[in-house]
């Protein structure tokens, strides 16, 4: 039987391939962990350039891997949220302004809702796939019309 596959089967297969590419890059190839390590290193470097009452610990959320930074240290609420440091409101604002950071919390604060980095990447991969699909569809339509001229 040589009946061709329906496009409603082909489309999910294509989407699954795009999501698989995203997951492979993020997990097995280690780009997710490398991204988290880069954020931590960047914030630690930035913290060495400002005065703090004591050492500040920096940890990017690992379970699940997310763009949320957990800080530890002896810093009052004022220094955390209100003191103006380099134009940002508090250390929280300063850390949140670093590239790649999605949220900041302190270790002694209750954990809020966390969006896993993998979910963000897969959503972006799905969007990129949809853009590619749309472009491909438009190109195929244009060529088809040219064929009948």
């Amino acid at each position, binding site marked *: 039987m040589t009946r061709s596959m329906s496009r409603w089967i082909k489309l999910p297969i*294509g989407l699954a391939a795009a999501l698989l590419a995203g997951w492979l890059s993020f997990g097995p190839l280690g780009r997710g962990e490398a991204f988290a390590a880069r954020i931590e290193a960047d914030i630690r470097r930035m913290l060495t350039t400002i005065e703090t009452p004591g050492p500040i610990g920096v940890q990017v959320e690992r379970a699940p891997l997310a*763009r949320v930074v957990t800080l530890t240290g002896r810093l009052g609420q004022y220094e955390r949220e209100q003191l103006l440091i380099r134009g940002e409101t508090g250390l929280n604002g300063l850390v949140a302004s670093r590239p790649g950071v999605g949220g900041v919390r302190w270790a002694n604060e209750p954990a809020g809702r966390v969006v896993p980095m993998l979910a963000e990447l897969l959503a972006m*991969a*799905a969007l990129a796939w*949809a853009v590619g699909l749309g472009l491909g*569809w438009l190109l*195929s339509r244009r*060529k088809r019309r040219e064929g009948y001229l």
Partner: protein
Amino acid sequence: MLTLAWDNAVTLAAALLIGLVTARWAFPRRAPAADKTEDEAQP
């Protein structure tokens, strides 16, 4: 979010390419009536 996207630009480009290939696969160019493909010849 933008930093994450930039960091994964190659992956996102691959996903876009997969989308293009999927479109070509799922929406093939219709052949002229004279040389219809086997699929199109079916009722």
